[in-house]
Protein backbone atom coordinates (compact mmCIF):
# COMPACT_ATOMS: atom_id res chain seq x y z
CA UNK A 1 0.00 0.00 0.00
CA UNK A 2 1.09 3.52 -0.73
CA UNK A 3 2.59 5.04 2.46
CA UNK A 4 0.80 8.34 1.76
CA UNK A 5 -2.50 6.51 1.99
CA UNK A 6 -1.67 4.68 5.21
CA UNK A 7 -0.18 7.74 6.93
CA UNK A 8 -2.59 10.50 5.93
CA UNK A 9 -5.70 9.33 4.10
CA UNK A 10 -6.78 6.33 6.16
CA UNK A 11 -6.42 8.04 9.61
CA UNK A 12 -8.31 11.03 8.22
CA UNK A 13 -11.15 8.79 7.01
CA UNK A 14 -11.31 7.04 10.40
CA UNK A 15 -11.30 10.35 12.26
CA UNK A 16 -14.00 11.90 10.08
CA UNK A 17 -16.10 8.74 10.39
CA UNK A 18 -15.83 8.76 14.19
CA UNK A 19 -16.65 12.46 14.38
CA UNK A 20 -19.70 12.08 12.13
CA UNK A 21 -20.97 9.11 14.13
CA UNK A 22 -20.55 11.02 17.39
CA UNK A 23 -22.26 14.11 15.95
CA UNK A 24 -25.23 12.18 14.60
CA UNK A 25 -25.73 10.29 17.88
CA UNK A 26 -25.33 13.54 19.81
CA UNK A 27 -27.88 15.41 17.69
CA UNK A 28 -30.44 12.61 18.00
CA UNK A 29 -29.79 12.52 21.76
CA UNK A 30 -30.29 16.30 21.93
CA UNK A 31 -33.58 15.98 20.04
CA UNK A 32 -34.91 13.62 22.71
CA UNK A 33 -33.36 15.66 25.55
CA UNK A 34 -35.30 18.68 24.25
CA UNK A 35 -38.50 16.64 24.33
CA UNK A 36 -37.68 15.32 27.80
CA UNK A 37 -37.14 18.89 29.00
CA UNK A 38 -40.61 19.89 27.81
CA UNK A 39 -42.24 16.70 29.09
CA UNK A 40 -40.72 17.03 32.58
CA UNK A 41 -41.66 20.68 32.74
CA UNK A 42 -45.21 19.77 31.71
CA UNK A 43 -45.45 16.93 34.23
CA UNK A 44 -44.43 19.23 37.10
CA UNK A 45 -47.18 21.65 36.07
CA UNK A 46 -49.74 18.81 35.62
CA UNK A 47 -49.88 19.30 31.85
CA UNK A 48 -49.44 16.68 29.14
CA UNK A 49 -46.70 18.40 27.17
CA UNK A 50 -46.13 17.62 23.49
CA UNK A 51 -48.11 14.44 22.75
CA UNK A 52 -49.31 14.66 19.14
CA UNK A 53 -46.40 13.83 16.83
CA UNK A 54 -45.62 10.12 17.03
CA UNK A 55 -46.27 7.86 20.03
CA UNK A 56 -46.22 9.96 23.26
CA UNK A 57 -45.06 12.89 21.13
CA UNK A 58 -41.65 11.26 20.67
CA UNK A 59 -41.05 12.83 17.25
CA UNK A 60 -41.98 16.38 18.29
CA UNK A 61 -38.39 17.65 18.01
CA UNK A 62 -38.08 16.36 14.45
CA UNK A 63 -41.33 18.07 13.48
CA UNK A 64 -39.98 21.29 15.04
CA UNK A 65 -36.77 20.87 13.07
CA UNK A 66 -38.67 20.64 9.77
CA UNK A 67 -40.75 23.64 10.65
CA UNK A 68 -37.69 25.76 11.51
CA UNK A 69 -35.83 24.74 8.37
CA UNK A 70 -38.70 25.46 5.97
CA UNK A 71 -39.40 28.93 7.32
CA UNK A 72 -37.89 32.00 5.74
CA UNK A 73 -34.96 33.49 7.62
CA UNK A 74 -35.59 37.17 8.25
CA UNK A 75 -32.69 39.59 8.65
CA UNK A 76 -33.61 43.01 10.08
CA UNK A 77 -32.83 45.97 7.81
CA UNK A 78 -30.55 47.66 10.35
CA UNK A 79 -28.71 44.49 11.26
CA UNK A 80 -25.04 43.89 10.60
CA UNK A 81 -25.68 41.07 8.16
CA UNK A 82 -22.42 39.15 8.32
CA UNK A 83 -22.10 39.11 12.09
CA UNK A 84 -25.84 38.48 12.44
CA UNK A 85 -25.56 35.23 10.48
CA UNK A 86 -22.16 34.33 11.95
CA UNK A 87 -23.41 34.45 15.56
CA UNK A 88 -25.64 31.32 15.51
CA UNK A 89 -22.94 29.46 13.56
CA UNK A 90 -20.36 30.35 16.22
CA UNK A 91 -22.74 29.26 18.98
CA UNK A 92 -23.48 25.86 17.50
CA UNK A 93 -19.97 25.11 16.19
CA UNK A 94 -18.30 25.83 19.53
CA UNK A 95 -20.88 23.84 21.46
CA UNK A 96 -20.33 20.82 19.23
CA UNK A 97 -16.52 21.23 18.99
CA UNK A 98 -16.13 20.54 22.70
CA UNK A 99 -17.36 16.98 22.23
CA UNK A 100 -14.11 15.99 20.53
CA UNK A 101 -12.41 15.38 23.87
CA UNK A 102 -15.26 13.89 25.94
CA UNK A 103 -14.59 10.22 26.78
CA UNK A 104 -17.92 8.39 26.47
CA UNK A 105 -16.53 5.03 27.60
CA UNK A 106 -13.14 3.47 28.27
CA UNK A 107 -11.09 4.55 25.22
CA UNK A 108 -14.12 5.95 23.35
CA UNK A 109 -12.77 9.40 22.72
CA UNK A 110 -11.94 11.10 19.43
CA UNK A 111 -9.03 13.22 20.68
CA UNK A 112 -7.46 11.95 23.90
CA UNK A 113 -5.41 15.09 24.54
CA UNK A 114 -3.36 15.83 27.66
CA UNK A 115 -5.09 19.12 28.41
CA UNK A 116 -8.63 17.84 27.77
CA UNK A 117 -10.32 19.62 30.66
CA UNK A 118 -8.61 22.90 29.78
CA UNK A 119 -9.81 22.52 26.19
CA UNK A 120 -13.39 22.06 27.38
CA UNK A 121 -13.04 25.05 29.69
CA UNK A 122 -11.51 27.18 26.93
CA UNK A 123 -14.13 26.37 24.31
CA UNK A 124 -17.03 26.81 26.71
CA UNK A 125 -15.63 30.21 27.67
CA UNK A 126 -15.82 31.13 23.98
CA UNK A 127 -19.51 30.31 23.79
CA UNK A 128 -20.31 33.77 25.09
CA UNK A 129 -19.29 35.18 21.70
CA UNK A 130 -22.26 33.67 19.92
CA UNK A 131 -24.51 35.55 22.31
CA UNK A 132 -22.65 38.87 22.28
CA UNK A 133 -22.34 38.86 18.49
CA UNK A 134 -26.00 37.98 18.04
CA UNK A 135 -27.11 40.68 20.47
CA UNK A 136 -24.93 43.36 18.96
CA UNK A 137 -25.58 42.54 15.30
CA UNK A 138 -29.36 42.66 15.79
CA UNK A 139 -29.03 46.43 16.22
CA UNK A 140 -31.88 46.66 18.68
CA UNK A 141 -32.22 47.47 22.38
CA UNK A 142 -33.46 44.26 23.97
CA UNK A 143 -31.07 41.89 22.23
CA UNK A 144 -28.19 44.17 23.17
CA UNK A 145 -29.22 44.32 26.84
CA UNK A 146 -29.62 40.55 26.85
CA UNK A 147 -26.19 40.08 25.33
CA UNK A 148 -24.53 42.36 27.89
CA UNK A 149 -26.19 40.60 30.79
CA UNK A 150 -25.23 37.26 29.44
CA UNK A 151 -21.60 38.22 28.93
CA UNK A 152 -21.31 39.42 32.52
CA UNK A 153 -23.08 36.34 33.82
CA UNK A 154 -21.02 33.79 31.91
CA UNK A 155 -17.73 35.48 32.74
CA UNK A 156 -18.59 35.58 36.47
CA UNK A 157 -19.58 31.96 36.76
CA UNK A 158 -16.63 30.74 34.72
CA UNK A 159 -14.43 31.85 37.61
CA UNK A 160 -16.05 29.51 40.11
CA UNK A 161 -16.26 26.69 37.54
CA UNK A 162 -12.53 27.13 37.03
CA UNK A 163 -11.82 26.76 40.74
CA UNK A 164 -14.07 23.71 41.02
CA UNK A 165 -12.15 22.12 38.16
CA UNK A 166 -8.89 22.97 39.96
CA UNK A 167 -10.00 21.11 43.11
CA UNK A 168 -10.83 18.04 41.04
CA UNK A 169 -7.50 18.30 39.23
CA UNK A 170 -5.66 18.51 42.56
CA UNK A 171 -7.20 15.17 43.53
CA UNK A 172 -6.48 13.59 40.14
CA UNK A 173 -3.10 15.04 39.22
CA UNK A 174 -3.83 15.14 35.50
CA UNK A 175 -5.69 17.33 33.01
CA UNK A 176 -6.72 14.35 30.88
CA UNK A 177 -10.45 13.60 31.08
CA UNK A 178 -9.94 9.82 30.92
CA UNK A 179 -7.44 10.03 33.78
CA UNK A 180 -10.03 11.92 35.83
CA UNK A 181 -12.41 8.98 35.44
CA UNK A 182 -9.68 6.39 36.18
CA UNK A 183 -8.82 8.29 39.37
CA UNK A 184 -12.36 7.67 40.64
CA UNK A 185 -11.88 3.90 40.62
CA UNK A 186 -10.69 4.13 44.20
CA UNK A 187 -11.46 6.78 46.75
CA UNK A 188 -13.26 7.24 50.06
CA UNK A 189 -15.11 3.90 49.80
CA UNK A 190 -12.08 1.73 49.12
CA UNK A 191 -10.14 3.62 51.77
CA UNK A 192 -12.39 2.24 54.53
CA UNK A 193 -12.29 -1.24 53.02
CA UNK A 194 -15.47 -1.33 50.91
CA UNK A 195 -15.30 -2.72 47.35
CA UNK A 196 -15.16 -0.16 44.50
CA UNK A 197 -18.51 1.59 44.34
CA UNK A 198 -20.21 4.92 43.78
CA UNK A 199 -18.83 6.06 47.16
CA UNK A 200 -15.40 6.39 45.54
CA UNK A 201 -16.49 9.02 43.07
CA UNK A 202 -15.61 12.64 43.62
CA UNK A 203 -19.15 13.77 44.40
CA UNK A 204 -18.80 12.47 47.96
CA UNK A 205 -15.21 13.55 48.64
CA UNK A 206 -15.79 17.00 47.13
CA UNK A 207 -19.48 17.35 47.94
CA UNK A 208 -19.64 21.17 48.30
CA UNK A 209 -17.81 21.54 44.98
CA UNK A 210 -20.30 19.18 43.33
CA UNK A 211 -23.15 21.49 44.35
CA UNK A 212 -21.23 24.63 43.32
CA UNK A 213 -20.41 23.07 39.96
CA UNK A 214 -24.01 22.04 39.33
CA UNK A 215 -25.36 25.53 40.07
CA UNK A 216 -22.56 27.23 38.12
CA UNK A 217 -23.30 24.93 35.19
CA UNK A 218 -26.91 26.14 35.27
CA UNK A 219 -25.70 29.73 35.17
CA UNK A 220 -23.06 29.06 32.53
CA UNK A 221 -25.60 27.53 30.13
CA UNK A 222 -28.18 30.27 30.83
CA UNK A 223 -30.68 27.76 32.16
CA UNK A 224 -33.47 28.81 34.52
CA UNK A 225 -33.29 30.05 37.27
CA UNK A 226 -30.40 32.02 35.71
CA UNK A 227 -31.93 32.60 32.26
CA UNK A 228 -31.57 36.37 32.52
CA UNK A 229 -30.17 36.81 28.99
CA UNK A 230 -33.57 35.81 27.67
CA UNK A 231 -35.75 36.84 30.59
CA UNK A 232 -38.97 37.00 28.62
CA UNK A 233 -40.81 39.14 31.13
CA UNK A 234 -38.24 41.93 30.73
CA UNK A 235 -36.32 41.45 27.50
CA UNK A 236 -38.84 39.57 25.29
CA UNK A 237 -36.33 36.86 24.32
CA UNK A 238 -33.02 38.58 24.99
CA UNK A 239 -30.39 38.19 22.31
CA UNK A 240 -32.68 35.96 20.24
CA UNK A 241 -35.43 38.55 19.66
CA UNK A 242 -34.56 39.25 16.03
CA UNK A 243 -33.82 35.65 15.11
CA UNK A 244 -36.20 33.28 13.38
CA UNK A 245 -36.24 29.99 11.48
CA UNK A 246 -32.87 28.22 11.00
CA UNK A 247 -30.61 30.76 12.78
CA UNK A 248 -32.90 30.61 15.82
CA UNK A 249 -32.83 26.83 15.70
CA UNK A 250 -29.04 26.91 15.66
CA UNK A 251 -28.99 29.05 18.81
CA UNK A 252 -31.33 26.56 20.48
CA UNK A 253 -29.20 23.66 19.29
CA UNK A 254 -26.05 25.29 20.60
CA UNK A 255 -27.70 25.95 23.94
CA UNK A 256 -28.85 22.37 24.36
CA UNK A 257 -25.51 20.99 23.13
CA UNK A 258 -23.86 23.09 25.84
CA UNK A 259 -26.35 21.81 28.43
CA UNK A 260 -25.73 18.17 27.51
CA UNK A 261 -22.00 18.93 27.60
CA UNK A 262 -22.27 20.33 31.12
CA UNK A 263 -24.22 17.21 32.17
CA UNK A 264 -21.47 15.01 30.72
CA UNK A 265 -18.79 17.10 32.37
CA UNK A 266 -20.53 16.73 35.75
CA UNK A 267 -20.63 12.99 35.09
CA UNK A 268 -16.93 12.84 34.28
CA UNK A 269 -15.72 15.12 37.07
CA UNK A 270 -17.95 13.95 39.91
CA UNK A 271 -19.98 10.85 39.00
CA UNK A 272 -17.28 8.49 37.79
CA UNK A 273 -17.85 8.75 34.02
CA UNK A 274 -18.42 5.29 32.56
CA UNK A 275 -17.69 3.38 35.79
CA UNK A 276 -20.51 1.14 37.07
CA UNK A 277 -22.06 2.22 40.40
CA UNK A 278 -21.03 -0.99 42.18
CA UNK A 279 -18.17 -3.25 41.13
CA UNK A 280 -20.14 -6.50 40.68
CA UNK A 281 -20.26 -8.82 37.70
CA UNK A 282 -23.73 -7.92 36.37
CA UNK A 283 -22.99 -4.21 36.37
CA UNK A 284 -19.56 -4.75 34.82
CA UNK A 285 -21.15 -6.57 31.87
CA UNK A 286 -23.15 -3.46 30.97
CA UNK A 287 -21.10 -1.40 28.47
CA UNK A 288 -19.57 1.79 29.88
CA UNK A 289 -21.41 4.01 27.39
CA UNK A 290 -24.74 2.94 28.93
CA UNK A 291 -23.62 4.00 32.40
CA UNK A 292 -22.30 7.25 30.99
CA UNK A 293 -25.57 8.09 29.21
CA UNK A 294 -27.62 7.07 32.26
CA UNK A 295 -25.61 9.33 34.56
CA UNK A 296 -25.66 12.26 32.13
CA UNK A 297 -29.43 11.86 31.74
CA UNK A 298 -29.85 11.81 35.51
CA UNK A 299 -27.96 15.10 35.77
CA UNK A 300 -30.11 16.50 32.97
CA UNK A 301 -33.23 15.42 34.88
CA UNK A 302 -32.01 17.60 37.75
CA UNK A 303 -31.48 20.47 35.27
CA UNK A 304 -35.06 20.05 34.04
CA UNK A 305 -36.52 19.85 37.54
CA UNK A 306 -34.69 23.00 38.61
CA UNK A 307 -36.13 24.76 35.55
CA UNK A 308 -39.60 23.62 36.52
CA UNK A 309 -39.71 24.68 40.14
CA UNK A 310 -37.19 27.43 40.90
CA UNK A 311 -38.23 31.02 40.19
CA UNK A 312 -35.86 33.25 38.23
CA UNK A 313 -33.12 35.11 40.09
CA UNK A 314 -32.90 38.86 40.05
CA UNK A 315 -29.76 40.22 38.39
CA UNK A 316 -28.11 41.53 41.57
CA UNK A 317 -28.86 38.26 43.35
CA UNK A 318 -27.21 36.38 40.52
CA UNK A 319 -24.05 38.47 40.76
CA UNK A 320 -24.04 38.23 44.56
CA UNK A 321 -24.26 34.45 44.39
CA UNK A 322 -21.45 34.22 41.86
CA UNK A 323 -18.96 36.66 43.35
CA UNK A 324 -19.75 36.72 47.08
CA UNK A 325 -20.76 33.13 47.74
CA UNK A 326 -19.33 30.75 45.14
CA UNK A 327 -16.00 32.48 44.54
CA UNK A 328 -14.87 32.56 48.22
CA UNK A 329 -16.28 29.08 48.81
CA UNK A 330 -14.52 27.49 45.86
CA UNK A 331 -11.31 29.41 46.58
CA UNK A 332 -11.35 28.15 50.17
CA UNK A 333 -11.97 24.62 48.95
CA UNK A 334 -8.95 24.80 46.63
CA UNK A 335 -6.75 25.76 49.59
CA UNK A 336 -8.29 23.17 51.93
CA UNK A 337 -8.05 20.39 49.35
CA UNK A 338 -4.44 21.24 48.61
CA UNK A 339 -3.56 21.22 52.33
CA UNK A 340 -5.39 17.95 53.00
CA UNK A 341 -3.74 16.25 50.03
CA UNK A 342 -0.31 17.52 51.04
CA UNK A 343 -0.62 16.63 54.74
CA UNK A 344 -2.13 13.17 54.25
CA UNK A 345 -0.07 12.33 51.19
CA UNK A 346 -3.10 10.97 49.30
CA UNK A 347 -2.16 12.55 46.01
Amino acid at each position, binding site marked *: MDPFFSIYVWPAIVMIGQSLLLLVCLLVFIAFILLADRKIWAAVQLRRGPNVVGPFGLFQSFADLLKFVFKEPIIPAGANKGVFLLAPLVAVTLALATWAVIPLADGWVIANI*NVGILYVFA*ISSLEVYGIIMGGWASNSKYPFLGALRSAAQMVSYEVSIGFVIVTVLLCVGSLNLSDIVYAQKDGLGTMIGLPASFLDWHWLALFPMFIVFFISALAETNRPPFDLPEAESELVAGFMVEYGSTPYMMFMLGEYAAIVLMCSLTTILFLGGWLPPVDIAIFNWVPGIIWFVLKATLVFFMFAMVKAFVPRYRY*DQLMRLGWKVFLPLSLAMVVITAFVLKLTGWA
Partner: protein
Amino acid sequence: MGLQAIFFYLFAFVAVASAFMVISARNPVHSVLFLILVFFNAAGLFLLTGAEFLAMILLVVYIGAVAVLFLFVVMMLDIDFAELRSGVLQYAPIGILIGLIVAAELIVVIGGSVLTPDAAKAITMPIPNPAERTNTAALGDVLYTNYVYFFQIAGLVLLVAMIGAIVLTLRHRTHIKRQNISKQVGRTPATGVEVVKVKSGQGV
Protein backbone atom coordinates in the same frame (compact mmCIF):
# COMPACT_ATOMS: atom_id res chain seq x y z
CA MET B 1 5.95 16.97 8.41
CA GLY B 2 3.90 17.91 5.36
CA LEU B 3 0.69 18.11 7.36
CA GLN B 4 2.34 20.27 10.02
CA ALA B 5 3.63 22.65 7.34
CA ILE B 6 0.15 22.94 5.79
CA PHE B 7 -1.39 23.77 9.17
CA PHE B 8 1.43 26.19 9.99
CA TYR B 9 0.88 28.14 6.78
CA LEU B 10 -2.89 28.06 7.27
CA PHE B 11 -2.73 29.43 10.84
CA ALA B 12 0.03 31.89 10.01
CA PHE B 13 -1.72 33.22 6.91
CA VAL B 14 -5.08 33.66 8.66
CA ALA B 15 -3.34 35.28 11.65
CA VAL B 16 -1.48 37.80 9.52
CA ALA B 17 -4.46 38.51 7.28
CA SER B 18 -6.80 39.10 10.22
CA ALA B 19 -4.15 41.17 12.01
CA PHE B 20 -4.20 43.39 8.94
CA MET B 21 -8.00 43.48 9.07
CA VAL B 22 -7.83 44.59 12.73
CA ILE B 23 -6.25 47.88 11.72
CA SER B 24 -8.09 48.32 8.44
CA ALA B 25 -11.69 47.38 9.35
CA ARG B 26 -14.00 50.41 9.42
CA ASN B 27 -16.23 49.09 12.20
CA PRO B 28 -14.41 48.82 15.58
CA VAL B 29 -16.49 45.81 16.60
CA HIS B 30 -15.32 44.02 13.46
CA SER B 31 -11.77 44.96 14.44
CA VAL B 32 -12.19 43.27 17.82
CA LEU B 33 -13.70 40.18 16.19
CA PHE B 34 -10.70 39.97 13.85
CA LEU B 35 -8.43 40.39 16.87
CA ILE B 36 -10.12 37.35 18.40
CA LEU B 37 -9.40 35.46 15.18
CA VAL B 38 -5.73 36.45 15.51
CA PHE B 39 -5.61 35.10 19.08
CA PHE B 40 -7.30 31.91 17.94
CA ASN B 41 -4.73 31.31 15.21
CA ALA B 42 -1.90 32.14 17.60
CA ALA B 43 -3.27 29.39 19.84
CA GLY B 44 -3.20 27.08 16.83
CA LEU B 45 0.46 27.95 16.22
CA PHE B 46 1.26 27.22 19.89
CA LEU B 47 -0.38 23.81 19.48
CA LEU B 48 1.80 23.07 16.44
CA THR B 49 4.97 23.70 18.44
CA GLY B 50 3.71 21.34 21.15
CA ALA B 51 2.90 24.02 23.73
CA GLU B 52 -0.61 22.73 24.36
CA PHE B 53 -0.95 24.27 27.82
CA LEU B 54 -0.01 27.75 26.58
CA ALA B 55 -2.45 27.37 23.68
CA MET B 56 -5.35 26.58 26.01
CA ILE B 57 -4.41 29.35 28.45
CA LEU B 58 -4.31 31.78 25.53
CA LEU B 59 -7.85 30.71 24.66
CA VAL B 60 -9.14 30.96 28.23
CA VAL B 61 -7.46 34.20 29.26
CA TYR B 62 -7.19 36.26 26.09
CA ILE B 63 -10.25 35.18 24.16
CA GLY B 64 -12.47 34.07 27.04
CA ALA B 65 -11.85 37.07 29.30
CA VAL B 66 -9.77 39.93 27.90
CA ALA B 67 -11.36 40.08 24.45
CA VAL B 68 -14.84 39.88 25.99
CA LEU B 69 -14.03 43.02 27.96
CA PHE B 70 -12.64 44.68 24.81
CA LEU B 71 -15.82 43.83 22.96
CA PHE B 72 -17.88 45.11 25.86
CA VAL B 73 -16.11 48.47 25.91
CA VAL B 74 -16.08 48.93 22.14
CA MET B 75 -19.78 48.14 21.87
CA MET B 76 -20.74 50.48 24.70
CA LEU B 77 -18.62 53.44 23.67
CA ASP B 78 -20.11 55.96 21.33
CA ILE B 79 -17.09 56.77 19.21
CA ASP B 80 -17.12 59.49 16.59
CA PHE B 81 -15.01 58.02 13.80
CA ALA B 82 -14.95 61.02 11.51
CA GLU B 83 -13.23 62.96 14.28
CA LEU B 84 -10.87 60.10 15.07
CA ARG B 85 -9.87 59.71 11.42
CA SER B 86 -9.20 63.41 10.89
CA GLY B 87 -6.12 63.51 13.10
CA VAL B 88 -4.69 60.16 12.11
CA LEU B 89 -1.75 61.56 10.13
CA GLN B 90 -0.29 63.51 13.04
CA TYR B 91 0.28 60.24 14.91
CA ALA B 92 2.05 58.72 11.90
CA PRO B 93 5.64 59.57 13.02
CA ILE B 94 5.12 57.88 16.41
CA GLY B 95 3.57 54.88 14.68
CA ILE B 96 6.47 54.60 12.28
CA LEU B 97 8.96 54.90 15.16
CA ILE B 98 7.27 52.10 17.14
CA GLY B 99 7.11 49.97 14.01
CA LEU B 100 10.82 50.47 13.38
CA ILE B 101 11.72 49.54 16.96
CA VAL B 102 9.66 46.35 16.81
CA ALA B 103 11.11 45.47 13.41
CA ALA B 104 14.66 46.03 14.71
CA GLU B 105 14.01 43.80 17.72
CA LEU B 106 12.59 41.06 15.51
CA ILE B 107 15.60 41.26 13.18
CA VAL B 108 18.02 41.03 16.12
CA VAL B 109 16.24 38.05 17.67
CA ILE B 110 15.70 36.10 14.46
CA GLY B 111 19.07 37.04 13.00
CA GLY B 112 20.80 36.00 16.21
CA SER B 113 19.17 32.59 16.20
CA VAL B 114 20.01 32.10 12.52
CA LEU B 115 23.67 33.04 12.92
CA THR B 116 24.31 31.11 16.14
CA PRO B 117 21.63 28.41 16.57
CA ASP B 118 23.20 27.14 19.81
CA ALA B 119 23.20 30.48 21.61
CA ALA B 120 19.64 30.08 22.87
CA LYS B 121 20.46 26.75 24.51
CA ALA B 122 23.33 28.27 26.47
CA ILE B 123 21.25 30.89 28.26
CA THR B 124 17.91 29.12 28.73
CA MET B 125 17.00 26.05 30.74
CA PRO B 126 17.01 22.72 28.91
CA ILE B 127 13.61 21.86 27.42
CA PRO B 128 12.25 18.60 28.88
CA ASN B 129 11.19 15.87 26.47
CA PRO B 130 7.43 16.30 25.85
CA ALA B 131 6.98 12.52 25.80
CA GLU B 132 8.20 12.18 29.41
CA ARG B 133 7.07 15.39 31.04
CA THR B 134 3.81 17.03 29.90
CA ASN B 135 4.26 20.73 29.40
CA THR B 136 1.71 21.50 32.12
CA ALA B 137 4.01 19.79 34.60
CA ALA B 138 7.12 21.35 33.06
CA LEU B 139 5.66 24.85 33.39
CA GLY B 140 4.65 24.03 36.95
CA ASP B 141 8.24 23.06 37.73
CA VAL B 142 9.52 26.37 36.48
CA LEU B 143 6.84 28.56 38.09
CA TYR B 144 6.27 26.87 41.42
CA THR B 145 9.63 25.25 42.14
CA ASN B 146 12.45 27.22 40.50
CA TYR B 147 10.93 30.70 40.61
CA VAL B 148 8.33 30.44 43.35
CA TYR B 149 9.32 33.72 45.08
CA PHE B 150 9.15 35.71 41.86
CA PHE B 151 5.81 34.11 41.16
CA GLN B 152 4.52 35.09 44.59
CA ILE B 153 5.79 38.66 44.18
CA ALA B 154 4.05 38.92 40.80
CA GLY B 155 0.86 37.70 42.47
CA LEU B 156 1.23 40.31 45.21
CA VAL B 157 1.73 43.08 42.65
CA LEU B 158 -1.45 41.98 40.89
CA LEU B 159 -3.32 41.88 44.21
CA VAL B 160 -2.23 45.41 45.03
CA ALA B 161 -3.27 46.57 41.55
CA MET B 162 -6.66 44.92 41.97
CA ILE B 163 -7.27 46.46 45.39
CA GLY B 164 -6.14 49.82 44.01
CA ALA B 165 -8.63 49.60 41.16
CA ILE B 166 -11.43 48.70 43.58
CA VAL B 167 -10.55 51.53 45.97
CA LEU B 168 -10.46 54.05 43.12
CA THR B 169 -13.88 53.11 41.76
CA LEU B 170 -15.72 52.24 44.96
CA ARG B 171 -18.18 54.82 46.15
CA HIS B 172 -20.78 54.31 48.82
CA ARG B 173 -24.03 55.85 47.79
CA THR B 174 -26.43 56.68 50.56
CA HIS B 175 -30.21 56.84 50.19
CA ILE B 176 -30.46 53.67 48.13
CA LYS B 177 -32.16 50.51 49.30
CA ARG B 178 -30.01 47.43 49.66
CA GLN B 179 -31.05 43.88 50.28
CA ASN B 180 -29.64 42.37 53.47
CA ILE B 181 -30.08 38.66 52.92
CA SER B 182 -29.33 37.47 56.46
CA LYS B 183 -31.67 40.07 57.95
CA GLN B 184 -34.36 39.10 55.47
CA VAL B 185 -34.03 35.38 56.16
CA GLY B 186 -33.86 36.02 59.92
CA ARG B 187 -37.29 37.62 60.01
CA THR B 188 -40.02 35.65 61.74
CA PRO B 189 -43.73 36.41 62.14
CA ALA B 190 -42.95 37.45 65.72
CA THR B 191 -40.46 40.12 64.68
CA GLY B 192 -41.92 41.03 61.32
CA VAL B 193 -45.59 41.52 62.10
CA GLU B 194 -47.05 43.64 64.81
CA VAL B 195 -50.66 42.99 65.79
CA VAL B 196 -52.38 46.12 66.99
CA LYS B 197 -55.80 46.33 68.51
CA VAL B 198 -57.38 49.42 67.09
CA LYS B 199 -60.30 51.03 68.80
CA SER B 200 -62.94 51.92 66.28
CA GLY B 201 -63.01 55.58 65.37
CA GLN B 202 -59.53 56.30 66.79
CA GLY B 203 -56.98 54.87 64.41
CA VAL B 204 -53.49 53.80 65.33
